[in-house]
Structure formats: C-alpha cells, structure tokens
C-alpha cells in the first residue's frame, strides 16, 4: 500500500486499529512532539485504503489507542481528525480538519466533541502556536 503523496504533509505512516466488530482498520497518522512538550496527533481517513471502519465512527477508541501508543498523558495530548479531499464532484467532500476533545475516565476517551479548524490553524498547532 503506497502513501498518497497528497497526504504526506499531515501523515507520516499508517496506523492499524480495530473498528466496529473488531474489523481490521487503518488510518494515516502524524505525531508531532511540539516545543511546548505536548503531542499533537493527526489521524487521517484514508477512505479506499482503509479496509475497515472510518475513523470518525470510532474516534474515541482510536484516540485512546493512539494515546497509549504515543506514551503521552491525556492532558498533554491534542487530537485532530483529518479527512482529505477526495476530488469529488460534491464540493463539501473536501479536506477538513477537526480538533476532537474528549472526556477521560482514567482508562479511555469518550464523548467526542468536534471543532472545525482551518488549514492555517492546523499548521500553527503543528508548530506549537
């Protein structure tokens, strides 16, 4: 499976996770260790290359799994969901970024809340701004 070059800026590698009913699923992932010590995680939906559940539908368990993989603490963890532009004729099927904030129960994330971000905001967050 090759990385779509258009994804490169926000995605360094693939990340395997379990989707609905334990279906093997895959997303793009970029982990940025920022100057302020926090870890920014960008999870990218890779559509046709994802054999399982879309990231939005399992966003809280996915963020939990990425948090544990990154060995970061919840308070130092910033999570962004990225859906790339599919080049669809439906214009609203374009690229989006959402910061996703969760509740933490000591073991896992739950109750996601999405807030739309601009590309510039994301680029700034990657720099720790």
């Amino acid at each position, binding site marked *: 499976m090759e990385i779509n070059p258009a994804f490169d800026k926000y995605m360094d590698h693939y990340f395997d996770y379990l989707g*609905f*009913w*334990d*279906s*093997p699923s895959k997303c793009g992932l970029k982990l940025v260790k920022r100057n302020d010590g926090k870890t920014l995680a960008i999870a990218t939906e890779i*559509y*046709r290359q*994802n*054999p*399982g*559940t*879309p990231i*939005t*539908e399992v966003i809280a368990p996915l963020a939990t799994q990425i948090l544990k993989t990154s060995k970061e603490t919840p308070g130092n963890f910033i999570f962004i969901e990225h859906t790339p532009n*599919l080049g*669809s*004729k*439906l*214009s*609203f*099927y374009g690229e989006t970024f*959402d910061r996703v904030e969760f509740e933490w129960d000591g073991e896992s994330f739950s109750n996601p809340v*999405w807030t*739309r971000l601009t590309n510039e905001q994301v680029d700034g967050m990657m720099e720790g701004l």
Partner: protein
Amino acid sequence: MKQRMHDIEGLILEKMKFKLIYPRWEKLEGQTIFNLPPHGPVVMAAAVPDHVEIDFTDENVEDLIIDDNVDFVGISMMLTTQVKRGWEIADQYRKLGKKVIFGGISTMLHAEETMMHADSIFLGEVEGRLDDVFADFGKNELKKIYNFLSKPPDMSLIGPANRNILKKDLYYHKGFRMVDLFHASRGCIYDCYPCAVRYLGGRGFRPRPIDKVVEELSQLDNNRLFIVDNSLALDTNWEKELFKAMIPLKKKWVSHTIEDKDEVLDLAAQAGAWYVYQAVFDTSDYIRNRIKQYHDYGIAVEGTILLGLDNQTEDDIKRLVDFLLEINLDLAEFTVLAPFPHTKAYSDLLKQNRIFDKDWNHYNAGKVVYQPKHMSPERLTELYHYAWDTFYKDEPQTMKMFNLINKVMSKELSDGTYRPRRRDLANLSFGKQITDIV
C-alpha cells in the same frame, strides 16, 4: 410439527421449521405502490442447511401471524425503516419462548440496538456460514454475534438464490409481474456521501464469476429483472464479459449506473438494459451528456435526486428540477438526505451536531431528520414536495411509468420474449383486491 428425515449421509436430523420474516415499512410519499420480491431473504434461504424448512412472510404483501408453531425465527431487514417493526416482532416471539436471529443490511447498520431484541445477530454475508449457525441452534449454543463483516465469502460460493420461498403471486399488480431482484457483484470501491456500502460490503469490488451469474439468470422464470449491484461501472472488462454472456438470455433489466464507455453501453443495450437509476447531483453538461448517451443506446433513465446536500441552496434545488425536465428524464425519484449510520453523511452531521431526530421510522428519505445547511428543515420539506409536484405536473408518474413499460414490451415483442399479463390476477394488487381499476 417436527418430522424426521434422513440426510444423505444417513444421519437422523430433526426437520427444523424456520420462520423467516421481512418486516413491513411505510412507503415513501410519492413512490410507486410497487412491492418487489425482496432479495436478502432469498439469498439467505439459499445458504440454509437442507434439514431446515423455511416458512417466509413478507409483511409488505401479507399479514404476519405470530404463533409458536415454529422452531426458530429469522428476521431479515434491509431498510432502516424496518428495524423498529423487526424489533417489535422479535420481542413478541421471544415472549413465546422462541429464539430469534437477525440478519441483513439494516441489522448491520443498527447492530448494537438490534442485539437488545435478539438472541443472535448475523453480520456479513451468509454463504458457507449458516450450517454452523443452525447447528449451534440445534445444540442450544447459539452465539450472540456471528460476525463475518471483514470476512467476505469466496464469490464462487454464491449460487442461485432460493426464490422458492416467495409466494410469487403476491408480487403482481393488476396481472403485471414485478421484476425479480438479482445480483452479479458485491462491494464497491467508492465512498459516496450517503452510502453505507463501504461498511456493509467492504471497500473492494467483488464480482461473481460470470458462469455463476449466467447459471442463476438461466434458472429465473422472470424475464424482467432489477440488477441490484451498487454500480455496474467498476470493472470494464468484467462488465463487458457479463453483458456479452447475458445477450443470449434475452432478459430485460433495470440497474444502477452503467459505465459511460460507448462499447460498454452498446453491449448493455444488447444484453437487455431497460432503464438505469442514475444519480443527478448537479446541472452540469456531464450529467446532460450522460443522460443523452443512455438514451442514444435506447436505455431509459430514472434520475435519483438527493435533496438537502450541503452544497444546495433553495435556488439550486429549483434549478435542478428545471434541469431534469430539460434533459428529458424518463422518471425521477426525489429523496431528502437521510444520514444512515455508517455513512460519511452520518459522520459529518454527527460531528456538527446537526442530527435532531433519531426515530428510525423517520429515516425514509422523505422526512428531514437533520438541520440542512442553507435552509430550515421545514423549507427543505416544502422543496422536496415542490420537486415531486413540478417534475410530474405535465405528465404524471403513472403515465411516465406506463411509457417505460411500453418500451420494454416492444423490445420483448420484437425478440419473442413477451408474456402477457396474468388475467387471473388482473383484479389484484399484491394479493389484495382492487376496487378501483383504472
């Protein structure tokens, strides 16, 4: 109730009575009154072990009698608007002490909720899997979930569907037989905004071997079919081989999109393409030419028009309806966006907290259950009715449908496959007496 039979290996098995039910749902306002024989139950029926005797009820055409004269109950659900009725039926059977298993598309879309009403749910495709399920039932070891969502079967295992379970006379309207549903492939490579196939059938295109398709088509006693594949535009070579193999069968069929290559459309027309469902999402020359191209090959077009997308304003919707009249669509079916679970539409609207109605009976693609981007839900509802009324103002839907029937009849008359309507059923519509025959 039970009778003994010997299987081919000489083992003694109990003949099991399996009640298979297809729950009713409320028709969308404006839709035709037609009830098509369902596809999921007949595909499932082909995969059950030989010692199982199936008693099938399609609640859309007959009444369901719930009693304890069954061993095991299966509920097959395709639409989201079937799930609440399906759960109600299951609850009643379980009160009688009967075990209930659910399967089908909507079971997969609503799996967690359905589990609350089920002894077992089956997720995925059935071929090669039901022997174990029925054996588990026989041992009283039914599993809560049979999950094959990520494990599609070998496509060569998919044999002819078992349409013998259908009470075929119930699928006639005034003596005219409805099309039979048929599939030549599963899965889809696309991520279309309102569609859940990526979750249900996987993100790959899985065509059936052509010889298996021809075997099933040859056995079908109905000359008119609806090929329910998600798209016939996913693999050019397979499509061409499929259509070539279908030509001698002289079937007449309806399908979703066919690829826009001339050589493919030419073969499709020769293979009996009657009309296609084509999504019309804008007023572009691409769409205009696409419709013309179908018509050039003698293939009619029913436009499927989704209203309420985020890129549609009120003016866009009105312009779209005008455009549909300009391009001479043969039929049009208007729906409003219904954010079914496991679709991109659902994910997006959920993220934006725009879904305000979670009553699954309202997810019929005629009711607005979310906040549209450019108008109120009430205004979108008005525009939905405006679209139906305007498109069919000068020529009603029944007349346009009659024209389509005439087209297929003339094709059948010319190739000798025409069968007149059944006079003994002329006074019935889906098994019920007609009082006002036109």
